[in-house]
């Protein structure tokens, strides 16, 4: 297990370095001069030259990358060219918000998705399955922005149960935090819940018709033990894979959700940085997101090997 883990960590670090290079080059390939974006309405050649010099934009790309990586390993991600605030501070402030949003959405997706998936599989051909399928279809097809605005109109304006925008840390006021996070979590989690429901249903249907389930039933195990202990446990491998893949989507999906609910998270930070060609912020954000993706993949692999030890053996071969 330890050597498997070390190999995976080494692979992850190499991936991260390669990603940082691609990201760095990719951001600079974007059309739109950052000095111009920064100077905006009142650009004069003299001001533009000063901006370029002050952010080292005139330097060779290799020199710029070296400087970026050199600082990044010490935890210094530079300062935002737009606001003058340290990028690391902006990320530290934004990250918990997106993580909380992702965690709540995931919780919602897992509870609803797995629950509905089991019901749909167990009650195959019954109205419950039809209802679960219809909800999943709805969850997959409704555009995020539309759902967000409708929920705000319904539950923040007409019935002012929840808040329409903003963020209050859980530690400051847990109740207010939840009032503000429920709607965004529903918006972000609904799509994932639908995917999880479909995967659970399919995997459960496979498991329920498998020989070992028939054996378990023949042994006289209770319905709960057969479904929970045998069928579900085996179906979870597929569901965890999907969840791992979708977690990344959760973070990228947060971009739209955070715009609607004015949550100052990672997504909003990214969008603002893209539009203002704020290289430093964008690099920092993308690097951290990539690190998160890589870490999640690593954790999913580890989770596999815990759920099904055969996978670890295969990986270590």
């Amino acid at each position, binding site marked *: 297990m330890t050597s498997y883990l070390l190999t995976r960590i080494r692979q992850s670090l190499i991936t991260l370095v390669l990603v940082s290079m691609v990201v760095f080059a990719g951001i600079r390939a974007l059309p739109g001069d950052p000095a111009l974006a920064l100077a905006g309405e009142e650009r004069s050649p003299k001001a533009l030259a000063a901006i370029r010099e002050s952010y080292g934009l005139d330097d060779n790309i290799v020199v710029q990358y070296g400087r970026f990586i050199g600082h990044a390993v010490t935890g210094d991600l530079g300062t935002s060219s737009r606001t003058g605030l340290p990028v690391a501070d902006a990320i530290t402030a934004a990250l918990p918000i997106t993580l909380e949003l992702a965690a709540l959405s995931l919780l919602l997706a897992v509870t609803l998705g797995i629950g509905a998936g089991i019901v749909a599989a167990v009650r195959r051909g019954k109205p419950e399955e039809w209802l679960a399928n219809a909800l999943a279809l709805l969850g997959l097809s409704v555009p995020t922005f539309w759902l967000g605005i409708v929920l705000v109109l319904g539950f923040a304006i007409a019935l002012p149960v929840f*808040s329409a925008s903003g963020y209050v840390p859980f530690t400051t006021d847990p109740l207010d935090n939840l009032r503000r996070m429920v709607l965004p979590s529903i918006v972000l989690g609904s799509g994932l819940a639908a995917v999880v429901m479909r995967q659970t249903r399919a995997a459960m249907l496979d498991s329920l018709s498998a020989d070992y389930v028939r054996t378990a039933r023949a042994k006289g195990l209770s319905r709960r033990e057969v479904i929970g202990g045998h069928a579900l446990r085996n179906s979870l491998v597929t569901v965890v894979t999907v969840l791992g893949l979708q977690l990344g989507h959760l973070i990228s999906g947060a971009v739209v959700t955070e715009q609607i609910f004015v949550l100052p998270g990672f997504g909003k930070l990214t969008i603002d940085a893209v539009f203002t060609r704020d290289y430093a912020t964008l690099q920092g954000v993308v690097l951290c997101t990539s690190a998160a993706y890589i870490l999640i993949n690593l954790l999913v692999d580890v989770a596999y090997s815990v759920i099904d030890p055969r996978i670890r053996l295969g990986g270590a071969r």
Partner: protein
Amino acid sequence: MRRKAVVLTAVALVMSLTAGCGSLQSSATEVGGERMTDDRPVRDGGTLTVALNADPDKLDPTLAQTLVGRTVFAGMCEKLYDIDEHGTVIPQLARGLPKTSKDGRTVTFALRKGLKFSDGTRLDAAAAVTSLLRHRDLAGSARATELAPLARVEATGTYTVKLTLKQAYVPLTAVLADRSGMVMSPTALKKYGKNFTNHPSCVGPFKYVERVGGDRIVLAKDPNYYAADRVHLDKVIYKPIPDGNVRLANLRSGDIQVGDQMTPVDVRSALTEPGLQLFNSPSLGYQGIGLNVGNVKGLGEKPGRIDTPLAREPKVREAFELAIDRELINKVVFQGMYEPACGPVSPESAIAPGVKASACPKRDVAKARRLLDEAGVKTPVRIELKVSTTPEHSRLGQVLQAMTKEAGFAVTLRPTEYATMLEETDSGDYDAFTSGWSGRLDPDGNIASFLQTRGAMNAYGLSDPAIDRLVERGRSEADPDERARIYEELTELATERRGLVYLYRQKNYVVTRKDVAGVRVYGDGLVRVTAAGYTR
């Protein structure tokens, strides 16, 4: 029982949704006349949250570039001069209007006594000199161009400042009524240098507390402010909410109390909401279509010859303008809530009123076709028009496309994101683009950089010695009547050359909740909150 609960919840949900949507659909209410202030009495205390349409850039008056940033400054950084609701310049930190010598090259002004910056430092002439020199000289200063005519800045007494100019420069007072006139605490400048942006300290009703990038800028009532007894709010929070729909939803839910820069569509919706009220003021800026008539090497470089019918033939540009119906654009695209425009100077400008909107040429398709014939160009004349990615600008593009088609143009639209558009148009890589300017108090600020040969923002590649001469005369002419005549002539000339076809003038629409009073919205587009508060 459980089934009944599900049905009831579903019904409640549907009803609440349709109630919300219902009021959004109505657009029968009319926008009234101009409304810039609301003087109902207010009580002390409370926090006001103002939603901006973008995140401001640096909170450093020397380096700041954005209009939204100016709105935040209006809450914490007073200027030597300000404007009132009529667009007239009035003293703010200065004691009276500046005195200018006969040759226009020496300007003196006195500062008010007993004023303190938010960090407790006293405001005196030395502080004003330090700030003015920093605005003029700091590398990357966005104020450098407008303060370039300053040769010397000196304190002639504890509270008097003398400016010596390289040449007569009439727009100076208006310039000092904007960010160039903001005085920063010399103590804070010394302590923080370029990092002043994270610790701004000025004279103002509110002082800087904190900024969370992309989320909020928090200001609190400044006890050092000279008129602190007339400031009612405890705190003001500025929150960037770029999407107009979301800004409106937050106004309705009460999460924010003031929505800045609302679009006509959102204003229509807001008017149906009993808890909201509207402020509007005419803008000093303009919006139009920039045409590439000579930008071959990029901004600031020598204009050259471009071999397209539009650039080559003035008649083709005239035909393009004649194919356009400005009134209809205003009605179709902007709900009739903006003003048609055909020149750089707002009719509302108190300095040199310029040509009135009614002087715009009427749409004349037959004449447009005739002009294309006379020019001997092959029709349809193909033009690629870069439009911003906002819904309003894509509608504007589509309407222009349809109108000009009838006269013999084939306009293709290329939606282009802001930073990319700046890069492409500045380098001359375009036929036509949607070009706008938020406007300045003095007409010079709306004209010089755009229309002068090799001007800092002349992306059109326009070069006309007559325009250049008039710009110089306009800057140095002290007599207001003569100045007005110069700008009228400049407007006519600019219209004739058509590097830029002026289309409309936006209005500043600000929506607030009804329990908020004392907010002021003037022609410079800033939301002033000094006197704001919650009604008693």
